[in-house]
């Protein structure tokens, strides 16, 4: 039995899939997932660096990087405007950062060769691969739409809980919990599943076969980023517009 367990452990170490393994850091008695922080720093560095380079000296006739970043900004503004309405202006940074951070995180998990860097425990992957990241973003979205509603309508914002009829009060309250829950778990599940499928396929058939799945993964990554940003904008717009 001991031999069996040992061979099992050896096989665990050989097979590449690691789920729920974390590279723990201790910060003041609290545990932190180091791999998530490292990759999130890389993603933030990519975002800030490319934006700083592209927007350093804007030209009237845009070229190259500036053109691309203008296109991205137009896209984000379009999403925000469609979901929030005419008062979308102040929310563009939030929606845009959500979209860009999630998008670059997802694609970094698929495109950057994180696995080259060995960690003592766990492995580097997309930051959105970790439930902490997605829940953090979802909770920020919740805070954002509460803030939007309360600054727009004051305390009468809470009137929406009994809006069609007071009977729906429990469901309306429940909605405030299901919104961040569904947002975070959708993103987390999609990205984790995508990376797992790719890893499993690569371990089974190393050649050619995983490629379509990888492209599908890139596609779903982009879609998930868009969905997260769009839903966040929709929630904010919903809490601002009111049910009159």
């Amino acid at each position, binding site marked *: 039995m001991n031999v069996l367990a040992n061979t099992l452990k050896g096989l665990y170490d050989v097979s590449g899939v690691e789920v729920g393994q974390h590279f723990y850091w201790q910060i003041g008695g609290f545990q*932190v997932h180091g791999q998530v922080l490292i990759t999130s720093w890389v993603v*933030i560095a990519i975002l800030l660096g490319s934006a700083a380079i592209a927007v350093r000296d804007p030209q009237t006739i845009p070229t190259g990087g500036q053109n691309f970043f203008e296109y991205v900004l137009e896209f984000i503004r379009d999403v925000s405007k469609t979901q929030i309405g005419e008062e979308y202006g102040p929310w563009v940074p939030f929606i845009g950062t959500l979209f860009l951070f999630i998008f670059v995180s997802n694609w970094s998990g698929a495109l950057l060769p994180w696995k080259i860097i060995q960690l003592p425990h766990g492995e580097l992957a997309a930051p959105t691969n970790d439930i902490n990241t997605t829940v953090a973003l979802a909770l920020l979205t919740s805070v954002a739409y509460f803030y939007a509603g309360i600054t727009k309508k004051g305390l009468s914002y809470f009137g929406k809980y009994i809006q069609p009829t007071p009977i729906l009060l429990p469901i309306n309250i429940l909605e405030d919990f299901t919104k961040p829950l569904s947002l975070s778990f959708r993103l987390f599940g999609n990205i984790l599943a995508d990376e797992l499928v790719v890893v499993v396929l690569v371990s089974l058939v190393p050649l050619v076969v995983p490629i379509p799945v990888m492209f599908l993964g890139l596609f779903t990554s982009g879609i998930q980023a868009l969905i997260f940003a769009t839903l966040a904008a929709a929630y904010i717009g919903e809490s601002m517009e009111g049910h009159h």
Partner: protein
Amino acid sequence: MANMIMASSKALITCSSTILPTPKLKLSPVQLSFPKLPLSNVPKPHQLLSLPNSISVILAASLAMAPPSLAAEIEKAALFDFNLTLPIIAAEFLLLMVALDKIYFTPLGKFMDERDAAIREKLSSVKDTSGEVKQLEAQAAAIMRAARAEISAALNKMKKETQLEVEQKLAEGRKKVEAELQEALASLEKQKEDTIRALDSQIAALSDEIVKKVLPAR
């Protein structure tokens, strides 16, 4: 909510560690083959009575014999492991939002809006001058029309005048020529008559001379 998820994750992990000896959620061929161990005992009829006992023994053994390192990893294999990472990521996100707003969204958005405004302004000013251009064009066309009419009128007038003059001169010349012709004809006739008359008077003298010359011997 976090507690709830943590609870569910704990349940999931303990459940998997009792049923399957692969609680790490690691995928390996062993995971497929190992559960067959107890199942392969099922079809044997003479072991039917001792079956639950054997399974429990195997499970207990597999749990007891698991090396401590594996057990430690089982404790750590946490998919839903909430800790300080969450607030740190939230803070990082907020910082990223502020930074991106400072270097990307606000400057580029302002730049794009200003460019839009400038283009719109230029476009509207172009529209205004287009009206002016139309007016000027109409004016130019009117001036051209007037000038053309004037020119054609002057031309017509000049043509008429010159025609009249030419005709007059022609008539004058014809009259003059006719008169001269008449005069010339008249003088010619007169000369002819004179010559005939002179010839008549000379005929007698000539014929006398001819006769004298022909008939010298007279």
